[in-house]
């Protein structure tokens, strides 16, 4: 019986797909109906996901032979691509997280998108009247399609389907970042949603092209893209890691190394790792539920999921002497620290979270790079809970401040009537929101504590500690210290954000009048806060004092058992007090430093960030994100534009000329033919017939005099002639 529930796996992506089609085809004009269809679809998907995931969790013996259900899909000669679904421990864990987070965010969206406050009420009178975003239905259609992409990606049993769902998510990401495509800002340097969507799409495209090359190479060697067939096949992996290929510039590399490197670039693009990280902060131009859903909890972690899936190949590549795992660890650790430093100097509440997402994904890649894929997947799952919580909390704050701003305006105690652009996302416009938005504030603080790895009571502590413990235990000291420094900064910027937003006194009228958000927005926060606190107990090391015995580290064990199937031997990290105490100390000291700077003496209105004074030019560099946007504009965008204008000139100067010349030649040819054939031959024949008829008529007309005597005379002559001819006739 228990096995049979897995037969429902293929149904998981369907309800949201049907919801997408139902909305775009039928329900589009009815906004509230559209949101109900979408939420209904995702709830069904959630129930199915949890049924499958929990069934797997309670029957760990399924790890020995994971479930796989496939039907033939694309026959190509001797090879047949199969379309199928598979469930193993990684899938089950992802399903557990994705189904739940999706549902929470869908419910939250029904509240969040009911506030067209950013829109000009004169331009959208209907939206202002009914209190719904003018493209409310479209939003739910897009996120339903996105949910299909994510759930499909998780259950897919082969890389081709994974890639297809991967791209569906990329498309949805583009559509949703640019959802408010008609929005513009008074500051021309601030990126608009339209440009941000394009930037995200094009940047991830760089990674996706390399990813696809990796897939093609893998397919050439394996003749199959099914996960279980490839990654549980030790002989094949061994062969792949021993055969080499000569590349220009790189020399001889093993096929396993090349393929895993190419696929890793796909993950770099999708998970916004250095150097393709630039799109994610700008993706915050999308509606906040989108940031929570796509750009924090699910889609960006698809890159991590992909590398977890590919771990057998990566470890085979490492055994074959390829440095790809070191590269992954380097990129991950570097990004973790690098993004954390940028987050310190951001003033936009969502940008801080965006950089913290990049940083946390860096932790996961660092874990993958040192072989601790179990720690990576657990951190992925827990991060999704608390990061979607933080994002939705920030959305709730933005709503509150926006409402407060409108309230202040309506009652005339604004800045004396002159319209100044007010940024409801700027943390320096907030302050003191704890009393005004208690549910949002407390859940946000729980999420923030989890992100900062507040010791013992938060989920983030256990999952992050596991990564650090692995780095320490396996002797990756550089990775350990980089990540530990990142952990300090994480705690600092998270609590900087919390102190700036929720503590002290309100710095603007808007913050003064901010109301708590509606229940459809606060309840998902509470539900997620539960997981942000207690979700970590699946990852408590067994030999940790007191609590270790209670939790028994079941998820990590399950993953390790699954690893055996794929030939991955991960020794569970022994609990060690040294790294644990170091990371606890760093997290706590980050919080304390944040309190000293922002909590002890809260900032007054219009007071600049004290960090700016202390860090000086460094702060400016961080505020401008190390000028990476400018650098990429200089080395990538501008040459592309130059190239485009060069090709434009080439097009006009050469191609157009050739085309015009061919045209002129044809015109000349046509004119000549017209003269010689049409005018002389065809016209000549036609006119000739006419002329002959005219001449004949002119001659014959002469004998028609109208006088009967003439006719008689002709008759006489004819008879005479005939008579004279008679002798010749006979």
């Amino acid at each position: 019986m228990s096995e049979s529930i897995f037969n429902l796996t293929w149904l998981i992506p369907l309800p949201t797909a049907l919801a997408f089609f139902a909305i775009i085809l039928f329900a589009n004009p009815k906004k509230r109906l559209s949101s109900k269809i979408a939420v209904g679809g995702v709830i069904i998907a959630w129930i199915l996901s949890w049924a499958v995931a929990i069934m797997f969790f309670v029957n760990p013996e399924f790890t020995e032979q994971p479930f796989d259900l496939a039907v033939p899909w694309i026959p190509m000669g001797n090879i047949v691509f199969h379309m199928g679904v598979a469930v193993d421990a990684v899938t089950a864990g992802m399903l557990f997280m994705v189904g739940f987070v999706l549902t929470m965010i869908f419910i939250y969206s029904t509240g969040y998108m009911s506030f067209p406050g950013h829109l000009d009420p004169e331009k959208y009178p209907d939206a202002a009247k009914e209190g719904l975003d003018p493209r409310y239905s479209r939003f739910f259609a897009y996120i339903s399609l996105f949910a299909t992409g994510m759930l499909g990606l998780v259950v897919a049993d082969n890389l081709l389907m994974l890639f297809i769902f991967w791209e569906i998510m990329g498309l949805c990401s583009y559509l949703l970042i640019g959802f408010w495509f008609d929005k513009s800002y008074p500051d021309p340097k601030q990126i608009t949603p339209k440009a941000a969507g394009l930037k995200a799409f094009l940047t991830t495209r760089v990674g996706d092209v390399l990813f696809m090359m990796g897939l093609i190479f893998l397919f050439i060697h394996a003749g199959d893209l099914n996960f279980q067939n490839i990654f549980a096949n030790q002989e094949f992996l061994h062969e792949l890691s021993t055969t080499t290929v000569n590349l220009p510039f790189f020399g001889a590399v093993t096929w396993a190394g090349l393929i895993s490197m190419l696929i890793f670039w796909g993950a770099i693009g999708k998970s916004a790792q250095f150097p393709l990280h630039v799109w994610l902060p700008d993706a915050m131009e999308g509606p906040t539920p989108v940031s929570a859903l796509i750009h924090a909890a699910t889609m960006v972690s698809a890159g991590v999921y992909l590398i977890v899936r590919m771990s057998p190949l990566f470890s085979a590549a490492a055994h074959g002497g390829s440095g790809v795992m070191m590269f992954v660890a380097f990129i991950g650790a570097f990004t973790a620290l690098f993004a954390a430093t940028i987050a310190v100097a951001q003033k936009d509440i969502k940008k801080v979270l965006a950089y913290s997402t990049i940083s946390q994904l860096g932790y996961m890649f660092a874990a993958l790079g040192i072989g601790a894929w179990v720690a990576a997947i657990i951190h992925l799952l827990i991060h999704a809970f608390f990061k979607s919580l933080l994002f939705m909390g920030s959305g709730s704050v933005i709503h509150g401040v926006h409402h407060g701003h409108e309230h202040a305006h309506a009652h005339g105690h604004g800045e004396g009537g002159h319209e100044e652009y007010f940024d409801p996302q700027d943390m320096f416009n907030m302050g003191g929101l704890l009393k005004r938005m208690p549910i949002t504030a407390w859940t946000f603080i729980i999420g923030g504590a989890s992100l900062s790895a507040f010791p013992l009571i938060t989920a983030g502590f256990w999952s992050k500690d596991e990564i650090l413990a692995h780095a320490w235990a396996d002797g990756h000291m550089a990775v350990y210290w980089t990540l530990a420094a990142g952990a300090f900064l994480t705690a600092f910027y998270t609590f900087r954000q919390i102190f700036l937003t929720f503590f002290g006194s309100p710095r603007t009228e808007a913050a003064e009048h901010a109301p708590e958000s509606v229940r459809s927005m606060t309840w998902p926060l509470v539900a997620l806060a539960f997981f942000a606190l207690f979700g970590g107990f699946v990852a408590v090391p067994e030999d940790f004092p007191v609590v270790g015995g209670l939790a028994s580290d079941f998820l990590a064990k399950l993953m390790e058992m699954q690893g055996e199937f794929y030939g991955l031997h991960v020794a569970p990290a022994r609990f060690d007090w040294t790294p644990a105490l170091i990371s606890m100390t760093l997290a706590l000291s980050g919080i304390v430093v944040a309190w000293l700077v922002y909590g002890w003496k809260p900032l007054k209105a219009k007071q600049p960030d004290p960090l700016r004074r202390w860090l000086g030019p460094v702060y400016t560099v961080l505020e401008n994100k190390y000028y990476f946007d400018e650098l990429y504009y200089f080395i990538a965008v501008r040459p592309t534009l130059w190239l485009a204008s060069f090709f434009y000139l080439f097009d006009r100067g050469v191609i157009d000329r050739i085309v015009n010349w061919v045209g002129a030649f044809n015109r000349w040819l046509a004119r000549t033919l017209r003269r010689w054939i049409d005018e002389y031959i065809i016209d000549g024949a036609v006119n000739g017939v006419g002329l002959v008829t005219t001449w004949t008529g002119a001659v014959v007309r002469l004998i028609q005099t109208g006088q009967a005597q003439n006719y008689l005379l002709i008759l006489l002559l004819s008879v005479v002639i005939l008579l004279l001819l008679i002798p010749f006739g006979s």
Partner: protein
Amino acid sequence: MTVPLSWYLIFATALFSLGFFGVLSRRNAVAVLMGVELMLNAVNVNLVAFWRYLTPTDLSGQIFVVFVFTVAAAEAAVGLALMISIYRTRKTINVDEINDLKH
């Protein structure tokens, strides 16, 4: 002495030719009609001569002549009526001017 058939035939030919000449050359429509009468009578002479010399027992020659007389009389009547009608509308019976067939 008997008159041979050829004499009649020569006479009839001469008469026919005179009549035909009249038809072709006269400008007066009445004269043209008179020429037609001469031609008809030349034919009658032939018919009677052939009857008398070749088939004296058969009356068909004489009967044919009577028919020709009858038809000639009718023709003269209709022809003269046409002349009068033409004269009344056009004030002329000059055949050169009556060339409406051309149009």
